């Protein structure tokens, strides 16, 4: 994954590189043009100076020849020589490469020359003046080096600015991110984000706060709905149950009718259990069991075992207990009782006939193990109505209740299937 800030950084870097690369030949051309124009002017000035001064003296032919010889020796590229013909050639500028006489490594130098002519005492002379010019490739190299240097400075600058931006400017964004990550809808707390002086972040934070506020409202409505719906359902369920009880008392029930009535019992019991569990979940979520007291878990396990004794015997389960004495928890007694009942009824129901039920309790962990054939579907195991079995009696909410109670007290709940055993672990730390 790319960081957001690296995107413009890359783009800026590439763009700078492109611009700087283009700038190199442009600079070279411009510098070269300036060079040449200056040198042409220099040559012209020297020529004019020479013309003016040479005319004011009366040099003989021999003098001129001497000047040519001496000056030509002293100043490379200078010459003044007789030319024939009546007409004077036009002034011209030329460029020439010559070997460097003093520096063998520098293969050749570039010279800029001006060729002109003048008439002294009726004789036409041609004058050439040359000046050394920096070669274009050398200019190119120098400019490229300087440009590279600036490019490096630019990149370093970008990196520094980027870091600073990441640290300062983006700080509110990262804070928001942390708040969102820690947000828990079921805690019923509004999302409060820091004010930011950056318009986009402020807008983001406000939108998020509104979004979360709406969600909390919907969530609360949903919870209230579940609780109200369960309450409303209790009465019709109670009615169904009492009507069924009355129907059973009828004197002339024929066998098919009594079988039908009997068949209503099970789904009605299930309906009643689902409703009770939904109500319980809603209440746990609404933190209606907030009070805590000291709970002796061992006692709760024993009382649940004796309560379920008949069902354990029905399945001829072997119960193995390994309970450490005097393990106490701070929790609501009803929730712990519910948790234990759900754990055990779940284990009993999912055990094979003649299987084993193992309960182990240490200072910070409760293990419930029961023999089974295949692993439960672990993906949505603790989700509501994600029941992984085809049982008719399951409310589909037992494990969800266990999970909800565990969440309430921040206990760690785990399931695994190993050695033909379903193992539920509850860690109290």
């Amino acid at each position, binding site marked *: 994954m790319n960081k957001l800030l690296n995107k413009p950084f890359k783009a800026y870097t590439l763009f700078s590189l492109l611009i700087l690369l283009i700038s190199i030949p442009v600079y070279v051309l411009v510098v070269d043009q300036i060079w040449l124009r200056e040198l042409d002017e220099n040559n012209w000035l020297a020529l004019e100076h020479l013309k003016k001064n040479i005319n004011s003296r009366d040099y003989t032919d021999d003098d001129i020849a001497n000047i040519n010889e001496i000056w030509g020796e002293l100043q490379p590229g200078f010459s003044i020589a007789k030319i024939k013909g009546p007409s004077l050639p036009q002034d011209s500028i030329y460029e020439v490469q010559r070997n460097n006489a003093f520096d063998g490594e520098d293969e050749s130098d570039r010279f800029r020359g001006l060729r002109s002519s003048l008439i002294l005492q009726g004789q036409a002379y041609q004058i050439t003046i040359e000046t050394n010019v920096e070669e274009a490739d050398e200019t190119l190299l120098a400019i490229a080096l300087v440009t590279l240097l600036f490019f490096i400075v630019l990149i370093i600058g970008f990196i520094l600015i980027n870091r600073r931006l990441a640290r300062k400017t983006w700080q509110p964004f990262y804070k928001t991110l942390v708040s969102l990550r820690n947000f828990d809808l079921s805690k019923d707390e509004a999302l409060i984000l820091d004010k930011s002086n950056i318009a986009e972040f402020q807008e983001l934070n406000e939108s998020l706060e509104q979004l979360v506020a709406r969600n909390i409202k919907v969530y609360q409505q949903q919870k209230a709905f579940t609780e109200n719906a369960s309450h409303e359902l*209790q009465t019709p369920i109670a009615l169904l149950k*009492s009507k069924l009880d009355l129907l059973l008392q009828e004197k002339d029930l024929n066998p098919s009718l009594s079988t039908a009535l009997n068949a209503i019992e099970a789904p009605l019991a299930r309906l009643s259990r689902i409703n009770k569990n939904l*109500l319980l979940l809603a*209440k746990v979520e609404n933190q209606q069991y907030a009070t805590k007291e000291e709970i002796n878990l061992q006692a709760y396990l024993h009382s649940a075992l004796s*309560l379920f004794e008949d069902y354990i015997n029905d399945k001829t389960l072997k119960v193995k207990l390994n309970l450490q004495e005097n393990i106490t928890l701070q929790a609501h007694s009803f929730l712990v009782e519910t948790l234990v009942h759900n754990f055990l*009824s779940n284990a*009993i129901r999912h055990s094979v006939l003649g299987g084993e039920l193992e309960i182990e309790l240490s200072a910070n962990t409760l293990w419930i193990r029961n023999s089974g054939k295949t692993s439960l579907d672990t993906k949505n195991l603790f989700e509501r109505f994600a029941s992984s079995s085809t049982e008719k009696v399951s409310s589909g909410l037992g494990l969800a209740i266990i999970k909800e109670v565990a969440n309430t007290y921040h206990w760690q709940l785990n399931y695994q299937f190993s050695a033909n055993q379903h193992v539920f672990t509850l860690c109290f730390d």
Partner: protein
Amino acid sequence: MKILIIEDEKGLANDMISYLSKERYLCEWAADYPSAIAKISSYAYDCILLDLMLPGGDGLSILAELKKQNKEEGLIIISAKNSLEDKVKGLRLGADDYLAKPFHLAELAARVESLIRRKQFDSNPLITYNEIEIDIQAKATKVKGEMIMLTKKEYELLLFFLGNKNRVLSKSALAEHLSGDFADMFENHDFVYAHIKNLKRKLKEKGSADYIKTIYGTGYRWEA
């Protein structure tokens, strides 16, 4: 025996009346708070069944009113709320029992019976039915004067049957009576059959008549 049923749901009140009336109970019905208060103030009852959610007032304040009037009626809260707070509060305010909706009518009848028995406890701790005699205090059962050893569950079943004579009791009602609220967590209530079989055997051994009849497909009935 007079019972006052304070319940706003007419259908349920009718069912309770219909079931309880077949026993020796005379039932009256109050559908809301004012009529409940009026009846309580004017008459004496052996037992009051109180729904906490009433139109016109909180059911718990009826409890307070009873206390204020120094009434000593037995009272069972029947509530759809099934909330622990209400249960604790109700019992603290002087209710004798708490039954969460939905319940089996047989369970209600047994609770009423047990409550009335407790109220008369001082005068008569014995329940007798023909050759069967039960000492509530000692939890001892005798047939024709001879002790029989019943397990806790067999003893509870016997009392349950005696509180619901001539009624068909479904397996689920029996299981719920034995295992409490959690019976509906299980599909299979076959253990009820085992307990009843043992109870019948123990009664028969001492020469008691065979009162418990199996009703095919539905449950059991104590035939008086």
